């Protein structure tokens, strides 16, 4: 009656063993971590240094090497939540559309008259035509530039909306195109943020999209959120624009299609430049910190073939003219073209120190952000605070664990010992599962484990109380144990399903620490039901088979 089939015994012991093996690396946290780092670094480099080989030897390769990730609140680091200003892209799309549109409309000059761009709100292109009565022809011409949007929701829509009133033609992105653009912008920003963070090479950064237009960035081990912000908050939009003139009047009107930008290192100097760039940073293939001929820090770069061709053609046609190197709407320098530059290589210099030239090179290499980032949330946690929390959590867990064990053994004697062994295995299994799925342990997560320690015995308590009742009712030991388990079952299931529902809701709504809590809570429920229902039962049955007691005391 109390027999557990062999396959079930093997299964239970197997699950416990696998769980514990997976949990084991966490006991040797720092050793396994250096091993993993060394493996990753040597794989990336293609060879291993002596140091790395020593680190790799510190942990055998055939053992699992998964670790529980420590959350930012335990390891220290920086957390940022950024919003991508997706609407900014609409403006640059319109700027890029203008030359094309001008060409198309100019072909119709005979019917629609002269064409010129007039001031418009951001994200719209307003074009005035000479003959207002020929507007239909202008709209038709403009429409030749519209292309259908390829998306699930916006099928059948064009990418631009064209409307006309009086002699002004208004062009803006259609809603379907805006949605598609927004998505692309966020994806691209995410990719660039990832590249920038990777360039600095910190361990296990978390960079993920949140909601429609937000990016969550968590970097362990970085000094402060301000540092991280300096790295990823810069747009790093590099362009090479034709210079129209140089001025010292900050309020000068630059004219349509032009822009007035301040110089970065000459106080009070402004440049009027053409809005449409000759070449942009997107056509760079490489950038590295270097020194110019005066031994000042500089950044050297190379264009890709198409960038080199455009730059070569422009410089060849404009010898003696200045052109501006513009970074994030500031003119870094405006050298005069002496020769056609056809090699596709160049150098940016001007007020920089070695640190800032290194950073600029990183930013240029990683590419420009398509739009500005606004930071909605930033958190910095020092590593000492995290370590303090780990230590406090460890002591509290240990004390809590011992107290629960004492209470269980005092109340249930030998059965209490079974429950305590199961509890120990339970904690091991929690860590095993956390490592296996690569979950992140946070400070509330530690609290979740302590809470589980307290609540995990609940299933056992339910069973033991039932066995007690059945014994009091005069049942024999074997029967009492059997009935105890089967009668307690429905209460155990209901009680744990409700808690699982809560954990699920916490997981969906929560961010960072709260999510970590939800994960440990959910895992704790699953492992505690497993250990209480199968592991303690296996122990109890094995003991019962050996001892064959006439009566049992619970």
């Amino acid at each position: 009656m109390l027999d557990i089939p062999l396959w079930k015994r093997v299964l239970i012991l197997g699950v416990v063993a696998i769980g514990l093996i997976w949990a084991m690396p966490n006991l040797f946290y720092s050793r396994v971590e250096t091993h993993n780092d060394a493996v990753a670094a040597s794989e990336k480099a293609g060879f291993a240094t002596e140091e790395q080989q020593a680190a790799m030897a510190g942990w055998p390769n055939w053992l699992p090497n998964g670790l529980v990730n420590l959350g930012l609140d335990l390891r220290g680091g920086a957390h940022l939540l950024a919003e991508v200003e997706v609407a900014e892209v609409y403006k640059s799309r319109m700027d890029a559309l203008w030359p094309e549109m001008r060409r198309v409309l100019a072909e119709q000059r005979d019917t629609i008259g002269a064409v010129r761009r007039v001031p418009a709100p951001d994200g719209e292109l307003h074009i005035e035509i000479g003959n207002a009565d020929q507007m239909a022809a202008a709209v038709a011409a403009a429409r030749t530039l519209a292309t259908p949007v390829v998306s699930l929701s916006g099928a059948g829509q064009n990418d631009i909306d064209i409307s006309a009133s009086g002699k002004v033609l208004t062009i803006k992105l259609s809603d379907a195109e805006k949605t598609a653009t927004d998505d692309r912008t966020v994806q691209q920003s995410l990719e660039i943020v990832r590249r920038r963070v990777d360039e600095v090479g910190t361990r296990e950064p978390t960079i993920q999209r949140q909601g429609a237009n937000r990016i969550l960035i968590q970097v362990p081990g970085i000094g402060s959120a301000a540092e991280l912000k300096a790295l990823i908050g810069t747009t790093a939009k590099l362009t090479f624009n034709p210079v129209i003139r140089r001025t010292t009047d900050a309020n000068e009107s630059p004219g349509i299609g032009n822009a007035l930008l301040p110089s970065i290192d000459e106080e009070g100097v402004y440049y009027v430049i053409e809005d449409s760039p000759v070449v942009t940073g997107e056509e760079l293939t490489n950038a590295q910190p270097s020194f110019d001929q005066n031994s000042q820090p500089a950044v050297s770069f190379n264009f890709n073939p198409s960038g080199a061709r455009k730059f070569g053609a422009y410089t060849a046609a404009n010898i003696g003219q200045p052109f501006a190197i513009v970074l994030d709407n500031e003119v870094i320098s405006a050298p005069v073209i002496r020769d056609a530059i056809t090699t596709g290589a160049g150098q940016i210099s001007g007020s920089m120190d070695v640190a800032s030239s290194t950073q600029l090179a990183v930013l240029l290499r990683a590419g420009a952000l398509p739009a500005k980032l606004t930071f909605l949330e930033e958190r910095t946690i020092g590593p000492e605070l995290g370590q303090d929390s780990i230590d406090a959590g460890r002591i509290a867990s240990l004390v809590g664990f011992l107290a629960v064990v004492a209470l269980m053994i005092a109340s249930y004697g030998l059965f209490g010992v079974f429950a305590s062994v199961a509890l120990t295995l339970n904690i091991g299994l929690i860590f095993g599962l956390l490592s296996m799925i690569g979950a992140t342990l946070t400070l509330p997560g530690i609290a979740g484990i302590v809470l589980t320690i307290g609540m995990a015995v609940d299933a056992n308590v339910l069973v033991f109380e039932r066995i007690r009742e059945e014994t009091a009712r005069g049942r024999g030991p074997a029967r009492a144990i059997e009935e105890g388990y089967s009668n307690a079952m429905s209460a155990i299931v209901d009680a744990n399903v409700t808690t699982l529902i809560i954990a699920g809701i916490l997981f969906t709504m929560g961010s960072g620490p709260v999510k970590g809590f939800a994960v440990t809570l959910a895992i704790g429920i699953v492992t505690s039901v497993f250990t209480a229902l199968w592991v303690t039962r296996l122990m109890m049955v094995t003991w019962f088979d050996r001892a064959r007691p006439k009566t049992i005391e619970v």
Partner: protein
Amino acid sequence: MAWRLKLVPDNTQIDFFRLQAITFGVSTLLAVASVVCLFVMGLNFGIDFRGGTTIRTEATQPVDVGAYRQAIAPLNLGDVAISQVFDPTFGADQHVAQIRIQAQEGAEAVSPETIAKVEDALKQVDPSITFPSVESVGPKVSGELIQTAVMAVMASLVAISVYIWFRFEWQFAAGAFVSLIHDVLITLGVFSLFQIKFDLTTIAALLTILGYSINDTVVVFDRLRENLMKFKTTPLRDLMNLSVNETLSRTVMTSGTTLVALIALLALGGDVIRGFVFAITFGIVIGTYSSIYVAKNIVLWLGVKRDWSKPDPEALPDQFRDAP
């Protein structure tokens, strides 16, 4: 008979309805007082919910709140709250303070320049000062966080009640629902009364309390359902007493082990999560109380169908029903 620790004597026959009037009165009173307290005093929202910046400082010299305040005052940052943090786990020369700065007009998150200025000003007061954590949340996010938090609590209440409804009867679901609301309200009331910092982790704690409280309630309901099938004529009130008495030993034992573990965490777990642990600890006590005194009283009051041995004839399709 070997010695056993018995938190609850065997075969208790406590009449849990004897003090019904008093417990009901106390529960109602506490719930109403909590609502009043929430309206009058409000909650001491952390930056998660109202935006702003908190800076944790640590120094080897004792914290001088007045001097800190004076140092920051010239920066014109609006509402600045400074409080010293005490904890038994701190070393002798570890002096910690928490500075909270309100969300700044027109800025989503406090700029690094402002934080740098605050840090510089404080370093003038005490050169040994360090800043183990700096957190800043913009008003846009904090508004959304409140919404999500309220939604989460509501969703949990509804999801649990629906589950209980499926597994038991609607009266049980109603009882569970009322007792959960009771737990949430009173916990909120305590947070309001003592102005304990209320942030995202407190919401997590609140949901955990719901989980624990329902856990306890379900165990009692489960036993009640069993007894309803066994004793078909015993008055409902007596059956409820029987069920609570039978499960009392388990209730006390589980609350005991959970509380023991939590008290260890409360005392030794450090100040960072103390508010969180306090909420759960308090909630466990109130949740245990409510599953004994609130949930089943509601069920008794609503009444429940008595014959659980046969399937409900109402639930049968017409063709299987006996002709009248």
